[in-house]
């Protein structure tokens, strides 16, 4: 009864082409935004922000970025961690070089820097395809991490080789540094997530997104019908890296505060975000959120159950976590290779007809 198209008449092209054409969907979306902006900041505490909300929001940005490249444009990338590192280090260098400029501008600029680096590493994609490209992006991953480790200029010659975010404020409230309140960090991330999701969703609905999908489905056929593969692939790399760079900057500046590159942006991170995209659903913005939520919540949940409730030693629990995560991924792929987004789509189909079976 809730999920109805009948009676929902569109009287203008604008109304017909909107992101959520079904009324219930639209109201749900507004409700989620209202809760996220209006209620959560007042009730959030440090534990929830740091264990769940901030990683969820930041990984969601990265997952949207990777989803644009892998899910929409079909270019498998394993260099996400490296690109996040570019965003983090660009943000750090900008923050320390221009302390008076707003951190928000720095984060966006860091995204821009990452986009440039992404395009550079995306160039081979014109010749290399499929798994060869996936492995080629590993070159970006390893090279970038090595670069940030070995060239002291990037970490301002600090003795530990770490980068530490200095305190920066937005409208007088600290958002980076150890003194930043949880709600401020949360709000900054939330604003970026909302913007990124909005831009991502609309890009993929429009001409650009259709070009990407044409390249994904069959690049030669796409070329024949007039899609420029150079422009399409490189723009996918640019947009994807831009988002991933923002995620990296937030991950470093707002979430962790201090970062050691090999630990925070290693190959594991690349795989984690790829998992999110695939579990969530390739080629779906909603899927990016679902995948990020799933993989952020799962370890927290497992840790609470295994260590907290069952009282196992933590090293055993950590190994068990690996088994469960690995097993779940396999079960998931066997049961629903198209991810959580597909489950949601099926649920919506059912909801349309509910309470009738046909």
């Amino acid at each position, binding site marked *: 009864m809730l999920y109805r198209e009948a009676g929902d008449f569109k009287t203008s092209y604008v109304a017909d082409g909107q992101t959520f054409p079904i009324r219930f969907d639209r109201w749900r979306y507004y409700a989620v935004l209202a809760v996220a902006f209006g209620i959560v900041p007042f009730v959030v505490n440090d534990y929830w922000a740091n264990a769940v909300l901030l990683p969820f929001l930041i990984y969601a940005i990265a997952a949207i970025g990777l989803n644009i490249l*892998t899910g929409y444009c079909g270019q*498998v990338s394993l260099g996400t961690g490296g690109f996040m590192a570019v965003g983090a280090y660009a943000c750090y260098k900008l923050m320390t070089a221009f302390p008076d400029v707003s951190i928000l501008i720095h984060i966006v600029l860091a995204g821009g820097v990452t986009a440039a680096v992404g395009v550079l590493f995306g160039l*081979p994609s014109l*010749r*290399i*395809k*499929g*798994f*060869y490209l*996936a*492995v*080629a992006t*590993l*070159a970006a991953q*390893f*090279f970038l*991490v*090595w670069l940030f*480790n*070995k*060239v002291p200029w990037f970490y301002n010659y600090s003795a530990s080789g770490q980068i530490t975010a200095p305190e920066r404020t937005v409208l007088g409230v600290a958002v980076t540094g150890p003194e930043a309140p949880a709600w401020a960090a949360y709000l900054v991330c939330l604003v970026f997530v909302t913007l990124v999701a909005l831009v991502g969703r609309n890009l993929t609905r429009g001409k650009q997104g259709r070009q990407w999908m044409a390249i994904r489905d*069959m690049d*030669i*056929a796409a070329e*024949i019908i007039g899609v420029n593969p150079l422009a399409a692939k490189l723009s996918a790399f640019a947009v994807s890296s831009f988002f991933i760079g923002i995620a990296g900057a937030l991950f470093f500046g707002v979430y962790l505060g201090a970062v050691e590159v090999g630990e925070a942006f290693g*190959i594991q991170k690349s*795989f984690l975000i*790829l*998992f999110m995209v*695939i579990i969530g659903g*390739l080629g779906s913005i909603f899927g990016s959120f679902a995948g990020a939520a799933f993989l952020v919540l799962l370890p927290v949940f497992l840790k609470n159950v295994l260590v907290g409730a069952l009282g*196992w*030693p933590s*090293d*055993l629990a950590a*190994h*068990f*976590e*690996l*088994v*469960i*995560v*690995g*097993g*779940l*991924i*396999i079960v998931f*792929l*066997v049961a629903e*290779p198209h991810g959580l987004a597909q489950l949601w789509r099926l649920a919506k189909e059912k909801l349309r007809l509910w309470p009738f079976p046909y």
Partner: protein
Amino acid sequence: MPEQFFWGVEVVLNGLMAGVLYALVALGFVLIFKASGIFNYSQGVLALFAALTLVGIMDGQVPFAHLINAIFGTDIHHFGWHLPALAAILLTALVMVALAWAVQRFIFRHLVGQEPIILFMATIGLAYFLEGVGDIMWGADIKNLDVGLPQGINATIDELTYQWFGYGFFIDNLDISATLIAAALVTVLILFAQYTKQGRAMRAVADDHQAALSVGVSLNFIWIMVWSLAGIVALVAGIMWGTKMGVQFSLSLIALKALPVLMLGGFTSIPGAIVGGLIIGVGEKLFEFLIGPMVGGATENWFAYVLALVFLVFRPQGLFGEKIIERV
């Protein structure tokens, strides 16, 4: 200057030996990729798992001891026997075959016909799973693996080269035996693929699944066989690497080293895996030796990838890969 030159030669020789070890891992990838189109990320973890199992069986460890102790409050560790290396290796090979069957039966049989990236993801899931299971079964501490392979500097080569050139080459006995074993393994594999019924069936499947199916080749059997072969190759690689640097988590990272080897050699070529391994082995050692000191060292982490990347731009299918013919 001749001193410098000899150093260089020594670096090249050691690079060749390291390349053989990379090639061993890459070989497992190629076998599975050729026969089933699965890009098997878990190959490195397979090697780790095989090495862990081997050590566990040799030392008579009780599997899952840690878990059992945690749940039942018991305190068990070892059965209290020591198996000879050969028997343990055979038993481990059996375990790998059983694992191959399980992988095929419970994972990939359900994923037939899915897109390559889904299969790839499944192998990453498998890698996590096996890593966790291996740790729970045998414990996560670093173990020594000694199956009786000679180790340490080869004195004969050292003396001979000292007499000839006035400079003794340092070459590890282990590397020499690894090279010999790898060569033997590859020969056996190639003979198997060329001259046996199962080997031919395997190549038929690699060529065209449907055509092979239509002339009566059992895909299921071939895939189990291929995974078993990959498991045994992983076991050999695990023994080599495990003896070299101890059986520990970082063993599974050799899979990442094998990837550029694959790119260079082509995903579908067994000779490619060997040649690629040698090129990468020599290339990264030489680069570290010549350029490394200028840029702060530790270039081995990325050099192989960048080399492969640059190479691929000029030859997208790798050295020996099948020519990619694209049609709409």
